[in-house]
């Protein structure tokens, strides 16, 4: 399983905007991303909550979606970002 985890919500407009960029990252960079929808899947929500302290420290004290996490280094960022930032995330 990939240690690049994306937590997202089906009805979140920021996630909707980021999804094509994530697809591009997978198609063009061959990235392996573990995509976890959190509002329709309790297990995914629990997984997100298990990283609560790490995520909250970087995301305004909240569990915001989309959250991009490197579970190996605990690097985290949230919200709408440029494609370049996603490339840096997986490199």
């Amino acid at each position, binding site marked *: 399983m990939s240690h690049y985890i994306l937590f997202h*919500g*089906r*009805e*979140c*407009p920021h996630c909707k905007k980021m999804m094509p960029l994530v697809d591009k990252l997978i198609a063009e960079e061959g990235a392996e991303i573990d995509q976890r929808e959190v*509002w329709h899947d309790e297990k995914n*929500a629990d997984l997100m909550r298990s990283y609560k302290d790490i995520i909250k420290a970087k995301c*305004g004290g909240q*569990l915001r979606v989309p959250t991009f996490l490197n579970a190996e280094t605990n690097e985290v960022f949230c919200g709408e970002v440029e494609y370049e930032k996603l490339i840096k995330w997986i490199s």
Partner: protein
Amino acid sequence: MRKFWRCHVCNDIHYGIFPPELCPTCKVEFGYIEVSSQEARKIMSISETTMSKEDFVAAIHRFTKMREFNVNPDQERVEMLTGGVFTCEQSQGLKYCPCRMIERDFESDLSLICPCNFLQHDTYKDKPDGECWCGLFVKKETT
């Protein structure tokens, strides 16, 4: 600690640290007495109200009327977000924010009920074109 208060004239129920000085329903002054949560719930059980998605959208529009923000004019976004809010209500019992995740700490999760206190959000505060984290509410343009 928050408690329940009942207007002795019209039985309005208030939940808060202090009772209102003026009853918003019958306008009596200093008419509230502290009651048990059991008594308050019993009185409130008289009214069973429901809220459809359309009712909610109408309510958030009314909510913005006298405030410094509007509901986002992007109807597709509003439709998506209200759909999410209602999905959360169906699965979790409250209209939680579809762009954030609850922590399973009931008291702190209350801050995620939509509309939340987004005036504190870094995406809203001190920004001329600020919006709530999800972009359901956007600051009114000041000309």
